């Protein structure tokens, strides 16, 4: 009896993996610090200066009835390519817990530290992904506020490229070294070979070094060399940190990398909020719209999930009082995320906030609902398990089983029918 049960579970799992996968890669454009939903994806033009500040209008999109922030005119022209979640919520107003929740899907406060979804995907693809490039890459660095590897360990953490993609030379850590050319490195390697006297782990280390040489001089070097792109393409993304990071992400996905985290900072706008928005949003608009259209034009959008958002949103009410003098605080009660590609349909809006944006009015979406949906589209069972070093198998998304922390996967905006995979 038990055997039959196990076999059927196994079959179910196999059929799951075979049929549910829509996406091969994920690009997370992470706006670290907490971007304001009001100026981006959930504008409130009908409120007063207390809420809308110096902004007046909206950008009407190419989809009837969807409006976004007025500083995002380029994204407004391609709203049919993405959907918006306007009812993200987790209630945490602290960077570290908000970040933890948005990047793991686990409600903070539990006894176990979960891995980020980049690490989970990296773990799940460990046998099937054969690329030379790491499985999970951060352009240019991951947020190190908690251990991204969680209980899976360091092995699955992201590879941080370091360097600056918008500079003339993008010095990718360990790959592009402006001081040492191939002759010098080969010379050094030969000397090391003769010098090395202690035999510890020799075989392993030798083979890892050989892989690294391939990594340094092989295809990966080409992938990170943005000079290979036509100038017009580089300009379209914008010659900014976020622009060239998004371009790098596209090139990495083309090369088959399963998870790319484009992390940009500076969204924690407690003061001078509107000045910051005026300078940052055009760069985001350019970069993100170029990324989505470019992926689409290359036929990659169907197999690539693009996500954009941060650890939380910002207070809908402007803090005009001193010392903020026109800032917005942390706000985890109701904020927005953009999702596109890889099985996510475009031109839809999920959820709604109330008139002032201070409350979720319809269809709350919890972090695990979003991340569970990403797992589903990546062919990973959102109700599956992960191994813990001392606690055995743990659910991959424990919150998904808790009605206070989950409101169900986002079937309304993906091309997989509810019921096919629901447990």
């Amino acid at each position, binding site marked *: 009896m038990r055997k039959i049960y196990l076999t059927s579970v196994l079959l179910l799992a196999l059929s799951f993996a075979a049929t549910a996968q829509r996406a091969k890669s994920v690009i997370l454009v992470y706006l670290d610090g907490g971007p304001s939903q009001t100026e981006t994806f959930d504008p409130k033009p009908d409120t007063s200066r207390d809420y809308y500040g110096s902004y007046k209008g909206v950008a009407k999109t190419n989809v009837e009835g969807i409006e976004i922030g007025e500083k995002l005119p380029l994204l407004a022209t391609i709203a049919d390519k993405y959907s918006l979640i306007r009812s993200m919520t987790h209630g945490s107003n602290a960077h*570290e*817990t908000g970040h*933890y929740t948005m990047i793991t899907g686990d409600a*903070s*406060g*539990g*006894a176990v*530290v979960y891995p980020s979804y980049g690490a989970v995907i990296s773990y799940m693809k460990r046998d099937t992904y054969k690329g030379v490039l*790491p499985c999970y890459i951060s352009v240019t*660095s991951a947020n*190190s*506020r*908690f*251990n991204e*590897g*969680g*209980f899976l*360990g*360091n*092995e699955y*953490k992201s*590879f*941080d490229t*370091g360097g600056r993609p918008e500079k003339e030379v993008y*010095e990718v*850590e*360990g*790959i*592009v*070294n*402006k*001081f*040492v050319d191939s002759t*010098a*490195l080969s*010379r*050094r*390697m030969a*000397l*090391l070979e*003769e*010098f*090395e*006297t*202690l*035999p*510890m*782990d*020799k075989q*392993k*280390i030798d083979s*890892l*070094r050989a*892989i*690294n040489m391939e*990594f*340094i001089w092989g295809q990966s070097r080409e992938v990170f060399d943005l000079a290979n792109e036509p100038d017009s393409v580089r300009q379209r993304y914008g010659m900014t940190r976020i622009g060239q990071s998004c371009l790098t992400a596209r090139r990495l996905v083309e090369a088959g990398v399963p998870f790319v985290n484009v992390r940009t900072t500076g969204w924690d706008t407690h003061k001078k909020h509107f000045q910051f928005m005026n300078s940052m949003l055009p760069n985001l608009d350019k970069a993100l719209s170029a990324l989505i259209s470019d992926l689409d034009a290359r036929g990659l959008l169907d197999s690539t999930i693009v996500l954009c958002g941060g650890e939380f949103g910002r207070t809908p009410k402007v803090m005009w009082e001193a010392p903020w003098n026109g800032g917005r605080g942390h706000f985890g009660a109701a904020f927005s995320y953009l999702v596109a590609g890889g099985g996510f349909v475009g031109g839809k809006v999920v959820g709604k906030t109330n008139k002032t944006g201070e409350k979720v009015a319809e269809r709350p979406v919890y972090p695990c609902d979003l991340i569970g949906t990403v797992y589903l589209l990546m062919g990973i069972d959102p109700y599956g398990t992960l191994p813990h*070093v*001392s606690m055995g198998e743990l659910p991959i998304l424990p919150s998904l089983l808790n009605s206070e922390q989950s409101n169900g996967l986002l079937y309304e905006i993906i091309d997989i029918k509810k019921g096919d995979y629901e447990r």
Partner: protein
Amino acid sequence: MRRFLVLIVCISSVAMCRVVSAQCSDEVFLRRAYLAVTGSLPTAQTCERFLDDDNFNKRERLVSRLVNSELSFKYMQMHWGDILRIKSEFPSNLWPNGVQAYNRWIYEQLMNNVPYDKMVRELLLSEGSNFRSPAVNFYRGFQQRTPENFYKNINLLFLGNRDCRDNGHLCFSQVRFKSTKEWKEEIIYLDYHKKVYYTQIELEDGTTLTPQQDSDWREVYVNWLTSSRNRRFAEVMVNRMWYWIFGRGIVHEPDDWREDNRPSDPQLLAELTDYFISSKFDMRKLLKKILLTDEFESEAAPAGYYTPQRLPAEVIVDALATVTGIWDTYSSRVPEPFTFYPPRTRATHLGDATVSSTELELFGKVSRDVSLEAQRNNEISSRQLLYLMNSSVLEQRIRKSGVLKKICEQNPTLEQLTDAITLRVLSRRATDSEKRLYKEYMEQNGLSLRDLALDMVWVQINSNEFLYNH
């Protein structure tokens, strides 16, 4: 003759089921002891002085000096911080002031060589403000502050027990928390009004505890725990110290004591435990004793008693900083605005797992999420090797190194250069064959002395001899 003696020792050791190989050289011993006890490299001068010292007991004198050094207290503080999960932010959430006070408290215990039983008593029986009675931070560092979680952690830390099944947690059910108006200050106090509904708590080993009305119930448990009759309490610490030094416990994992996980050398464990108890839980004496065992002095071999270990992340990072003379700067992101650590702060001394750097993350700094020793992963990875091989950040540090510049500016001969660098990076003088190797290399490639120096540093920091404590 020496070989013959070694053979006899080997044969007799096999008979005693202990594999002890030949004694390691002075160079190896010095570097090994420095790294194990202080987490730092000896300076070039220290190396020369030790190597040229003719005293027969120089190893013992070195060990005495090391275990009494500030660097040792600071490094042991890091080990304690790992298992007590000292961290400002998620998931311990002790916050910077609490972290600072807690670290200071541990440092003082180690500096004053407070006996282990007394230290644990103070830790577990603490009450008051987390700023003024720092040990109470023990009770704060849990996402779920429940008696069950406190008790589980105490079992893991002090008894190596991963799976406690008795209801000793009742002894911790009076612990309460109260915040004050000060940012992140908390008062830990006991609720004496809680009624005793049970008169007896039976522990797994059959001991019965009897908590009294109007008293701190933790006390009956802690009395039992730290008693010298509770041999397991002493054994776990002895084994943990052994693990800290050798990277492998006599019982392994060091926090997984079970019936079916036996010590690899019961006699050794028994001897050390007897010694620890009879010394009244003197941790410094225990450390010294371990450092003077045949095992610690034996030559490294894959299957021998001393197995080489890759250096921990913090130690590698500090070693790279020592070699180049260029140190990373560390800062804390909470509370805003960011607070910067003083320049040249050692990574081993940071005391807060929230504070990190790219280099530390790369080499696997412990994130202090759990109290298990196994959370530290010292496995060498391709990314770490990639960084050492070809990072422009690291290369720039070598090129900018004032230390290297100074060595080169003195117009050294090839021999002097080789010795100066090898002493600094590998804590020994260069061998004759190495000197020949470098000379050939320089001539073949037509390098200047300065270029040779850069390549020499590169080769040495990429060698196993640097990356491992061997």
